[in-house]
């Protein structure tokens, strides 16, 4: 007898995008920054990243097995989490740290909440926050100087990354000299290119910008979050007395990594257009608040995590307008 016909609901054709492809495209967008980081800080970067990714994959598989779920490590989402976590670690951290960080990210932030699509905070950032709370010294001290450069991006000042210098300039010399040198064109150029100390993947604003624009153009990243984030951040950095200029703030620390790659994480950001603006602006405001008044020199990861928590609320309050829905009661059409 003949085979039965397939009966399924319409539509009968589907678009080309799928989750695995999307994950891989994000990974591809991160590769330039990664390669540059290996060049800047050496093979240690490679080792940390590999550990982070492998532990992510193993934890994902083991957790899925234990929880009786389908094992989906081939979808590359765990690879991306591992990669992003590594990007958020200083290149000099002990090698067990990426392992613990990605284990926490996958086990607690992702799988225990239901796996892909159900986590309410960004797993990689949760991993970073966990490490930050547990071993703050490793997370804030283990910087490596880039090839042919200094931690600060300034000749002769080697003690700290630009943002740390900005936070506590008095610890490293004459504050007014340090601040003025931070604002020099030469320093900002080094910061933009990434020849400074910093987390593995965050230093090169240039390469992250290229990767991020690529994702916006192909439609994986929504520009609203990025523009909302960077826009509100710039505006506040401009009007508030922050010692350094706006460009310095934009390019330094993990802002570009956060704005293009972490805040825009599909699962943990709002799904409405208006909500995405609110989310991005919220991230920007919080980042400035933490950088200016917080205890940390950097505020990107905590601001995104905080906004992640607001995502369900934002979605609920910013429903899209349904076609034909009357906003206000205007005089009915005759």
């Amino acid at each position, binding site marked *: 007898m*003949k*085979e*039965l*016909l*397939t*009966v*399924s*609901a*319409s*539509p*009968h*054709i*589907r*678009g080309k*995008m*799928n*989750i695995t*492809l*999307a994950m891989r495209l994000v990974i591809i967008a991160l590769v330039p920054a990664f390669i540059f980081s290996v060049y800047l800080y050496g093979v240690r970067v490679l080792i940390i990243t590999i550990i982070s990714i492998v532990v992510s994959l193993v934890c994902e598989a083991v957790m899925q097995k234990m929880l009786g779920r389908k094992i*989906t490590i081939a*979808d590359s989402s765990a690879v991306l989490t591992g990669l992003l976590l590594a990007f958020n670690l200083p290149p000099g951290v002990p090698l067990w740290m990426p392992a613990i960080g990605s284990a926490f990210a996958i086990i607690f932030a992702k799988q225990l909440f239901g*796996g*892909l*699509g*159900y986590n309410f905070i960004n797993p990689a950032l949760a991993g970073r926050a966990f490490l930050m709370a547990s071993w703050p010294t490793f997370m804030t001290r283990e910087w490596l100087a880039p090839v042919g450069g200094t931690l600060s991006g300034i000749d002769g000042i080697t003690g700290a990354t630009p943002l740390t210098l900005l936070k506590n300039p008095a610890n490293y010399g004459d504050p007014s000299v340090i601040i003025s040198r931070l604002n020099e064109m030469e320093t900002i150029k080094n910061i933009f290119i990434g020849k400074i100390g910093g987390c593995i993947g965050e230093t090169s604003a240039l390469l992250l910008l290229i990767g991020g624009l690529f994702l916006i153009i192909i439609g994986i990243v*929504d520009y609203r979050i990025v523009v909302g984030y960077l826009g509100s951040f710039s505006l506040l950095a401009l009007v508030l007395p922050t010692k350094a200029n706006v460009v310095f703030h934009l390019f330094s620390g993990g802002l570009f990594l956060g704005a293009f790659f972490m805040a825009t994480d*599909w*699962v*943990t*950001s*709002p*799904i*409405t*257009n208006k909500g*995405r603006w609110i989310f991005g602006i919220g991230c920007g405001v919080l980042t400035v608040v933490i950088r200016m008044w917080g205890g940390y020199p950097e505020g990107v990861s905590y601001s995104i995590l905080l906004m992640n928590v607001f995502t369900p609320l934002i*979605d609920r309050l910013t*429903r*899209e*307008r*349904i*076609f*034909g*829905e*009357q906003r206000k009661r205007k005089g009915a*059409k005759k």
Partner: protein
Amino acid sequence: MLRGFSGGVHPPEDKTTETCAIEIVPPPKRVCIPFSQHTGKPARPLVQKDDLVRIGTKIGESDGFISVPIHSSVAGKVIAIEQYAHPVLGSAECCIIESTDSDEWETNIMENQNYEQLTREELLGIIKEAGIVGLGGAAFPTHVKLTPPPEKPIDTLIINGCECEPMLTADHRLMLEYPTGITEGAKLFLKILGAHNLIFAVEDNKKNAAEIVKQEGVDVRLVKTKYPQGAEKQLIKALLNREVPRGGLPMDVGCVVQNVGTCYAAFQAARYQKPLIDRVVTVTGTGVKESKNVLVRIGTPAIDVINYCGGYTNPPKKIIFGGPMMGIAQYTEYVPIIKGTSGIIVWSEVPDESEDPCVRCASCVNVCPMGLMPTEIYAFVRNKKFSKAKEYGVLDCIECGCCAYACPAKIRLVHYLKYGKSEVWRLSKK
């Protein structure tokens, strides 16, 4: 510059049959004509087993206002009135007629040269008696659509030649080959409605059709090729920037939209008194040997049409009535063509249809032409929170399929939303 509508997708057009002139499929040995081919009450059978019928013999009488009569599409003998496969309803009461070789028409069907002198009421009667329904797919009785209540005056009649569904070219061919019939039919509608504005909308991937129709002296407007441009509410928005209110109809904003095929059928009814007994269907897909546009008698089993097109290439895996975005997958190749069937798509392979979890990418939200949040509604439906689904507008869904098309997790969003709709209706009836 024309305004568009928000949302929508650009699936591959695959309109390979646009150069295939309409061919006439000979009447099949046997037709199975369902008594329900339209939205509304099924027609009441007028014939019995062993009755002889001719082409155009009325075999079902309209039963109520939202209903139309059904006519025989062949000359022959009624061999049964029984439940049979139905492309939309699964199965329904059908009149099965075995055709004789004679091509005899019902005797009272006569040409009317002076159809232009017919009054509004006469025209409405003719359209109803000819069993004309919307041929775009929804099959809503045309005479009902043409008689809006007096408090809803119609200023604009839109003729829908968008054919935004991928792969289908039946309307395109009809516009190329019978532009006069279509525009004549449109003018009859205009007269019935008393509207002063006639807009003929064609997607800009059919410029040749637009040119030909323009020569008939009507106001042809090109609209962007974007799915679902041909959906009534989206088309009205794009052409007139009017938004049909939620739960409302085009007449609420002074519009009536009619498909080109419907216009042609109405013209044939007025001019030749020909009831709706055949229609143009696009037959295409990887599973059929020769893709064609064919004129098929209503009630012809799909397999007869497929065989006319050279038969299957490989054993079929999926047979769709309609287009790939909104068409209905059939469970048997014997299902008959009905008035609303615009295409037959045969596929010899089907893609993997497994679902991944929603990753909240919001693709569905961005492409929904109705401004809905399909993934949220999907979650409510899955958790049986139907009142929430209703609050989020599940009843506004037009089932166009953009959300599921765009979904990277391949979630069958339309399936869940349709289910949600039916549950909301069921619960509200209680």
